[in-house]
């Protein structure tokens, strides 16, 4: 329990840091982004919009601490203002319409990569020097060396443009109305294949090598020898004895990756014009839509922190050493 509370405190601090960062960035950066944005968009904006922007970005005349208190209060209560590029939609509404797609893309890719990668790692460590152990790690390191977005571009070019097997843009076809019909779901699935595939390809090597290295250490433990001496079936020793204990670092890595996914799929989303938060973040940056940008960053951070907190709770359940402390 103390462990959980400690972690919770830590995540709250991290969240506070990201709010503060958001608050400080537009106020103390050289080059004055605020006036840059005003210069570009003033003639298109309503007076009340300018007013709220002034407050949000700190060009009002209140003292700094007062602005800060107001800002933190607004962020915590979810009053992130109105988007500029998608006026008059509130920032929260814009984010809400995007977040599902990122979760779908990232979640699918993450689960596939983690499950397959860990299984490969277990197999590689179990048969040291075997086919899986000697051929796959160098190959996966090589694939993992490619930039996300470049693999995405390659996949788009090869399977999308040249071969025409998969659609190349967006999350579903314009011709289909979103509904819970088979046609729509399969269309979404087809659009998901290429972006998800590139994320899986890049990240699977990390899972496999991580699992393999821990598992090699676990295999050297005495209780494994004991299990073998008892004559247990190899499959049982491999999964129930060795892999089970080697899983812990992977569980932690899973928490870290969850956050990685929300923001890390950004490049893939940009290449495929996939309508997730990453794509929206870039669009907000290009449109100098600072309220939306800050809102997206806070949402992504909050998602990362929440995911890690959930993993911590799971960790307490999995690792008795944490509980006894």
């Amino acid at each position, binding site marked *: 329990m103390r462990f959980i509370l*400690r972690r919770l405190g*830590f995540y709250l*601090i*991290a969240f506070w840091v*990201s709010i503060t960062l*958001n608050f400080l960035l*537009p106020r103390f*950066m050289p*080059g004055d982004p605020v006036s840059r944005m005003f210069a570009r968009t003033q003639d298109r904006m309503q007076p009340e919009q300018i007013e709220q922007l002034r407050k949000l970005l700190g060009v009002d005349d209140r003292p700094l601490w007062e602005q800060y208190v107001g800002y933190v209060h607004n962020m915590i209560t979810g009053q992130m203002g109105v988007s500029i590029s998608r006026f008059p939609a509130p920032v929260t509404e814009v984010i809400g319409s995007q977040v599902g797609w990122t979760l779908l893309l990232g979640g699918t890719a993450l689960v596939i990569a983690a499950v397959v990668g860990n299984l490969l790692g277990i197999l590689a460590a179990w048969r*040291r*020097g075997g086919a899986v152990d000697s051929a796959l790690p160098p190959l996966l*390191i090589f694939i*993992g*060396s490619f*930039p*996300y*977005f*470049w693999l995405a*571009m*390659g996949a*788009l*070019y090869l399977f999308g443009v*040249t071969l025409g097997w998969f659609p190349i843009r967006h999350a579903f076809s314009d011709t289909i109305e979103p509904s819970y019909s088979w046609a729509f779901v399969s269309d979404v699935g087809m659009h998901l294949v290429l972006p998800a595939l590139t994320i899986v390809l*890049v990240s699977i*090597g*990390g899972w496999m090598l*991580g699992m393999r*290295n*821990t598992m*090699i*250490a676990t*295999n*050297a433990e005495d209780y*494994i*020898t004991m299990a073998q001496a008892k004559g247990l079936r*190899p499959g049982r020793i491999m999964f129930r004895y060795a892999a089970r204990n080697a899983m*812990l670092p992977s569980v*932690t*890595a899973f928490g*870290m*990756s969850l956050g*990685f996914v*929300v*923001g*890390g799929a*950004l*490049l893939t989303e*940009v290449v495929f014009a996939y309508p997730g938060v*990453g794509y929206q*973040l*870039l669009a907000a*940056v*290009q449109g100098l839509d600072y309220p939306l*940008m*800050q809102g997206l*960053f806070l949402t*992504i*951070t909050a998602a*990362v922190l929440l995911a890690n907190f959930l993993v911590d709770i799971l*960790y307490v359940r999995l690792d008795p050493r944490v509980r006894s402390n």
Partner: protein
Amino acid sequence: MTTSIANTASSLPGETRAVDPLTGKTPDGGAGLPSGGSVRRSNQGLVHGLLTNKKAMTGAAILLVFIALALLAPVLYPDNPSKITGMASQEPDAEFWLGTTAKGQDVLALTIHGARSSLFVGLTVGFASTFIGILVGLASAYFGKFIDEALSLTTNVFLLLPGLPLLVILAAFLPPGLGTVILVLVVTGWAGSARVLRSQALSIRSKDFVAAAVVTGERPLRIMFGEILPNMASIVMGTLLACIIYGIGAQAGLEFLGLGDVSTVSWGNNLYWAGNEGALLTGSWWVFVPSGLCIALVAFSLALINYAVDEVTNPRLRKIRKTAKTNQIPTGKRAAA
């Protein structure tokens, strides 16, 4: 992006975190640390091990080729590489070995010149983040208590803030330019190395020879850099390599999004322009393949060296001979016996 691989190659990403709050021990399983006296010999062992390691030598060879190309770029292509020299979107032929872009620039010249900026930023970011990581890690481990708490908290917060979105936000607010790119990459990249180095420094801090140095009245700086640091050479090297990989990959990502300095020629910018000019849709594969391949090859060569450092310093990961394998007894056991 590349961080997931980079982390794993140097040390397991989750493990440090998992073990950290409980025991403060490192994940460094069986590496066994040398005592103070044998520092020089063990570091020589590392160098020797790397020189005879096939992976390390392959990696070093690839890396050297790219460094040579980057240095020779002004000799090979004295002209401004962005100059329009041919017809638009020409396929690779005898005159333009890698074809031309949609604007009619020579892709080969762009790629070779691109190596300069990409390697420069990668190396600068790598060294700077590792340097900060060393400072934070050593200070944490040596002083402990309040300083350690504060530094660890900062490190962990930075580690948890999602890197790429933070990169994008920072790059959006700062004036564009090469300095901004480097600064932003260091700000988001140092935390990973600080955590790895701290946990390693912590385990060395508890060794007797450090206690002896403290008792004999050595100055803190001398203990940190003269006693503790040399004993973690291999981890520092692994961290440095991982940070360079991160730097190169993240720079490319940032520039691909158009958030770098679009006027410089670098691999990331080449890809940005390729995307912008619709190279994918018109089927000009030769425009985007070379730069991406170069990034991958450099990252791969660094990862190979990193992997070799792991192998040399951790005997359990070394290759085992096939003949030694008689049945399915997990072989880590045999290596330990």
